[in-house]
């Protein structure tokens, strides 16, 4: 017996699979039992089988450098899944739908009457400083007044077991292809587990994405032309762009494949001639989308795209300007945003956040800086952050100065202890911290959430950094039907 749950230490942590040493949570009981019965050799075999499967499919994960050969960017994959009971997931799902609905209303309001500012709920001064507010989008009505069609929200669970939203990615969130591939690997390797358990499927995502995009088409045609716009083969998410295009049967295009003609419609350059495009799932950032309007140097975009979009001749997902709702200061207002537009209480919480723009909050942050995490509004990927408990006195003083100088740009949050899940280290299991990124699709008439999402795990002991570039890996995420458990 290689895996002994009795010696798996969870004290002071919330573990996703194990309640206390030796005692699995109900939804994980069958899995833990199964794993306990594996010999060292079987574990080795399963690991090798998973690696083989990834290698075989993984040819597609590979990213190429311009100079030489290939750099394999395949994420390390841990074969022990993370499990969430369906009953809990339903609540999370509802909370996410509510959140994204409110965020879309918020974005639409900001580009129109700005009632939320007029009503004094959201300070107008914050908008003036926002780097992601695009004045070029003011007054535009995208189909169904939906802006953020594809949202990836990062969820974390604190040691008390509560799930929080850590951030919403409303621009070009990535990672969904890993969610799909992880499941494929698991089904190849652990066929017997899938036979005996009620694990909800994830593989309808590409068709849901297709349906959502098709619903945005400005032309009422039977088969609208949908394309995926990629920055090209050197983009780190190129594999995902190609994968989704292929799965949807959509054309994968680069900016140079598209052109906006005098009629303000978008066309693909094909061997048959010009071919009209209805919907663009764009994976290019706002600033590079249209050199006429945004960065004039951009070679990744399409000149005139914004004209075509304003004229309603093409749909863009996500709509340009959606990013206004994903900076960290806006994030801190999401509970108020939900109450304001939907007149409901948030069903899934934010991490408690002090907004330095408020005098009281600011004083609290300055006083308690040694206990808090300080984040700037518009950075992502952990840049420009202060982790109070781990910082030196000098660093803390430096941040106090920064906050006083530009309070709008900073928020403070308590340092969470992210939940863990058993992860293979050699042939033994040890707890490792993780998060979860579900994807929410919003079309004119429907909102859908992936079943689970992408679980990212910090493979280094004690680390809470789950990013792939910094020692992160991923796990399959199982939503297990727990009725009757």
């Amino acid at each position: 017996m290689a895996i002994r749950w009795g010696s798996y230490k969870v004290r002071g942590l919330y573990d996703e699979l194990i309640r206390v040493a030796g005692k699995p949570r109900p939804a994980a009981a069958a899995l833990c039992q199964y794993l306990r019965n594996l010999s060292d050799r079987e574990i080795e075999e399963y690991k090798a089988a998973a690696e083989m499967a990834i290698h075989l499919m993984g040819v597609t994960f590979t990213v190429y450098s311009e100079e030489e050969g290939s750099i394999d960017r395949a994420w390390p994959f841990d074969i022990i899944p993370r499990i969430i009971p369906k009953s809990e997931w339903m609540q999370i799902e509802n909370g996410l739908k509510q959140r994204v609905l409110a965020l879309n209303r918020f974005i639409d309001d900001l580009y129109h009457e700005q009632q939320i500012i007029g009503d004094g709920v959201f300070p107008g001064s914050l908008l003036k400083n926002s780097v992601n507010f695009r004045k070029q989008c003011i007054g535009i009505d995208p189909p169904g007044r939906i802006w953020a069609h594809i949202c990836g929200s990062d969820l974390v669970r604190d040691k008390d077991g509560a799930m929080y939203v850590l951030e919403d990615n409303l621009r070009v969130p990535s990672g969904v292809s890993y969610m799909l591939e992880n499941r494929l690997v698991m089904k190849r390797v652990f066929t017997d587990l899938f036979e005996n358990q009620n694990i909800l499927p994830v593989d309808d995502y590409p068709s849901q994405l297709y349906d959502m995009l098709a619903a945005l088409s400005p032309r009422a045609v039977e088969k609208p032309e949908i394309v995926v716009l990629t920055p090209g083969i050197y983009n780190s998410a190129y594999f995902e762009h190609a994968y989704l295009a292929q799965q949807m049967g959509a054309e994968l295009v680069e900016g140079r494949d598209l052109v906006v003609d005098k009629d303000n419609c978008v066309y693909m350059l094909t061997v048959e001639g010009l071919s009209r495009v209805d919907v663009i799932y764009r994976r290019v950032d706002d600033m590079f989308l249209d050199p006429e309007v945004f960065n004039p140097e951009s070679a990744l975009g399409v000149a005139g795209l914004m004209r075509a979009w304003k004229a309603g001749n093409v749909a863009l997902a996500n709509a340009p300007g959606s990013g206004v709702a994903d900076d960290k200061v806006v994030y801190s207002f999401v509970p108020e945003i939900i109450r304001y537009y939907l007149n409901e209480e948030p069903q899934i919480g934010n991490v408690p956040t002090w907004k330095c723009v408020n005098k009281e909050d600011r004083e609290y942050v300055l006083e308690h800086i040694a206990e808090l995490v300080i984040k700037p509004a518009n950075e992502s990927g952990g840049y420009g952050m202060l982790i109070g408990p781990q910082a030196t006195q000098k660093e803390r003083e430096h941040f106090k100065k920064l906050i006083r100088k530009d309070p709008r740009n900073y928020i403070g949050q308590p340092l969470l202890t992210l939940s863990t899940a058993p992860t293979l280290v050699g042939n033994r299991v040890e707890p490792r911290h993780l998060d979860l990124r579900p994807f929410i699709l919003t079309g004119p008439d429907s909102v859908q959430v992936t079943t689970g999402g992408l679980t990212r795990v910090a493979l280094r002991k004690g680390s809470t950094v789950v990013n792939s570039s910094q020692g992160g890996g991923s796990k399959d995420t199982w939503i297990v039907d727990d009725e009757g458990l």
Partner: protein
Amino acid sequence: MLSRVAENIYWMARYIERAENTARLIMVNTNLLLDLPKAGQLGWQPIIEILGCEAHYLESNQDYDERTVLKYLISDTSSANSIYHSLQLARENARTIRDIIPREAWERINGLYNTAKATVQSGYGRKGRFDYMQNIILGAQTITGLLAGTMLHDMGYDFLKMGRNLERADMTTRIIDVRSADLLPEHEMMTPFENIQWMSVLKSLSGYQMYRRTMQERVNRPFVLKFLLKEKKFPRAFFHALLEVKDCLKHLPRNEEAIELLNDVGKKVLRADQAILQQEELHRFIDELQLGLADIHKVISKTYFRHPVAE
């Protein structure tokens, strides 16, 4: 089909074919030098001339020493004809269309590039050259076969075939040209060896057996020329390659201009009379054919890859 994708497929095929043909060209000349009397040999200069890269070659090289020329033909990264550079460009093009070509084909292209690069030294000297060139030729043939056997035979495949056949037709004329170069009047001493030389041309195009079966004639100049230029059924013959391109064009929209041009070049080659194709005439005639191919390329490129609205 996106124009960019079609263009990438077309060039991928051209560069794979070019790598193979450069290898064949090197083999034919290597064999000639072995067969002919040492006095009066033209060495490697004609090859550089035939490839039309004399000026470029002389930028960085002083003489036509065998090893220097071979280095240039095999691994010079700035030469449009070197084997290594052709494979590199084939791979670049293949990489952007990995969702179009079968994975095995991509792996073979990548593999051929890697081997060609790793063993590049062995082609410089005569000792390892045969194996090196054989490896390139077989590698390219494997890729061609894999694509024929596994790729969707849709419009993309038409562009692949057009690229391959235009490149092939072009190189067949160049390989014939190697002969016409050292059969110029000032090299009269080579005349007794003429038939041996034509035989080696056929062999370099894997065409000796096919010639025997088709022509039922002993190897001599007029029949070899007829075979390599006009034979419909031999895959490396000029006319065959033209017919292949025409076949592909028939599947494509807006093909009128390209087909008309192609018919002109086809008529020209069919009307050519071997009797008048003496050395110097042959050389000029081949220039004409090559210009014809370049024009066909231009029309294909203009019709399918370039769009006035995007310029």
